[in-house]
């Protein structure tokens, strides 16, 4: 693997770290298997592309993407909390609807933003370090800010109430926690983060595509699980950093598998590689525990 490819993999890994943290919030904190992310990821990208091309400041476009993602999360929460639809099914409904909505947002299935300003471009004008190294550095700073905010939030009274909602709903209610409200808040936050990931994906790859969301949940889960395997422990800070490291390592591993010529893989094998890697990541911790089920 060339160093150019390695930095590229790190860059993609950092973009998907937002997805990892979002999936961690829904899956691990709220215990809510939320497939909305497959729709809110391209939604974030679509909103960003349309607004940047419409002349918006890229930061404002990214904030709007976060709001759009949060709204998608609220729809899933409403289906589950108000109408008692099974959590995973509620999220699949939103995800399905978002496919059409994303095409409506862009008015077409994909949208390039070739030379437009992005949140990254102001940092890329110098020649040292080169852009392919500078991009991951800027992304790393953004990821660090997200990690800090999420970890701080989970240490507040409201954050604690959200963790209790995922861990023990009956106890949470007895302590006066409105567990339904926590599902709304948690899914909004989770999908806002995923949409920011989608927004950055569009800004780094310079296109938005309605199919970019397929398998987002798998990628996010992979980040969470690889993180948990490499950085075990119950501390929230460790777990959230684990999501970031898991996301980067996962991308580097995929890149390595694709560029190892002796394996004879081609780009279209990516999804097979992803599925195999996630399956391995899911199986490894189980083997380590001596085959007991979770």
């Amino acid at each position: 693997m060339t160093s150019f490819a390695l930095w590229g993999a790190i860059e993609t890994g950092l973009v998907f770290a937002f997805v990892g943290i979002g999936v961690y919030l829904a899956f691990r904190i709220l215990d809510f298997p939320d497939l909305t992310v497959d729709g809110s990821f391209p939604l974030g990208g679509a909103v960003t592309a349309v607004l940047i091309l419409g002349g918006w400041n890229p930061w404002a476009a990214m904030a709007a993407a976060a709001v759009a993602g949060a709204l998608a999360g609220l729809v899933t929460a409403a289906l589950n909390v108000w109408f008692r639809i099974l959590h995973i099914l509620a999220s699949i409904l939103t995800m399905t609807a978002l496919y059409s909505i994303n095409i409506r947002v862009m008015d077409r299935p994909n949208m390039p933003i070739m030379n437009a300003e992005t949140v990254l471009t102001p940092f890329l004008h110098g020649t040292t370090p080169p852009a392919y190294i500078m991009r991951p550095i800027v992304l790393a700073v953004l990821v660090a800010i997200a990690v800090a905010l999420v970890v701080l939030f989970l240490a507040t009274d409201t954050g604690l109430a959200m963790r209790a909602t995922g861990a023990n709903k009956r106890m949470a209610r007895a302590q006066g926690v409105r567990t339904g409200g926590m599902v709304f808040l948690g899914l909004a936050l989770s999908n806002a983060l995923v949409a920011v990931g989608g927004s950055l994906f569009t800004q780094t790859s310079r296109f938005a595509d309605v199919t970019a969301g397929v398998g987002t949940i798998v990628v996010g889960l992979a980040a969470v699980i690889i993180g948990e395997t490499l950085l075990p422990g119950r501390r929230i800070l460790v777990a959230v950093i684990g999501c970031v490291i898991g996301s980067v390592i996962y991308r580097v591993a995929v890149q390595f598998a694709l560029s190892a010529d002796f394996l004879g893989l081609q780009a279209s094998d990516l999804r097979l590689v992803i599925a195999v890697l996630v399956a391995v990541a899911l199986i490894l911790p189980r083997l380590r525990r001596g085959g007991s089920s979770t």
Partner: protein
Amino acid sequence: MIAVEQLGVVFGRGTPLEKRALAGVDLTIPTGTFVTVIGSNGAGKSTLLGALAGDVIPTEGRVVVGGVDVTRRPTARRARLVARVFQDPLAGSCADLSIAENLALADARGHVRGLRLALPRRRRERLRERIAGLGLGLEKRLDDRMGLLSGGQRQSVALVMATLAKSEVLLLDEHTAALDPGMAEFVMGLTQKLVAEEKLTTLMVTHSMRQALDYGDRTIMLHEGRILLDVEGGSRHDLSVEDLVAMFRKTRGQTIDDDALLMG
């Protein structure tokens, strides 16, 4: 004060499995009274407790806690008024959260939860003092996961959790039933101490006649969804478990086939 008026609960109404769990229960518990509730399986003890806690929405009647009609309020919206310890030691706390985090959650019961840090130094020290009062050495383990504690320790912490924030009534749902005898005695001693210190209005459901008579100021026996017996003061003081059994037989004209009721 708690006032239960003509409380009726029917489960599965209109189905072949229709079951009347409570049939017109009237009960007034003055502030500061410790009431023990006894009855055989299916007598309606848990349903009565559930109706007070918010888990069971009554079919008819009213539940008033501290002057507030809470009959149809869901659990979370009446938590300001109602504190509770569950029978299952695992049910009352979060295993994956630390002892301190569980305490902070309970400390905020009845308050609006904002974006302040849950465990600033001052609150942490206050919680540490409270947990030190147990004498179990848990004040040194504030950051340990709750799941590492034994059932008895968890139940003791749950009692402290229930008394951290103010409430109009403390509900104890056979909270020593899952513990070994030594630990059960410790938790009951702790219960008595906390209830006396905080002058709590308390309703304790128990399976043991002995426990029902030994603790509290007043004992209620439920049978088939009705109050069968309601004793307090001197007449209760003179009552023995045998008397209770005899009284039960006389009133109902039948024998008690629930061994658990006679044990302890």
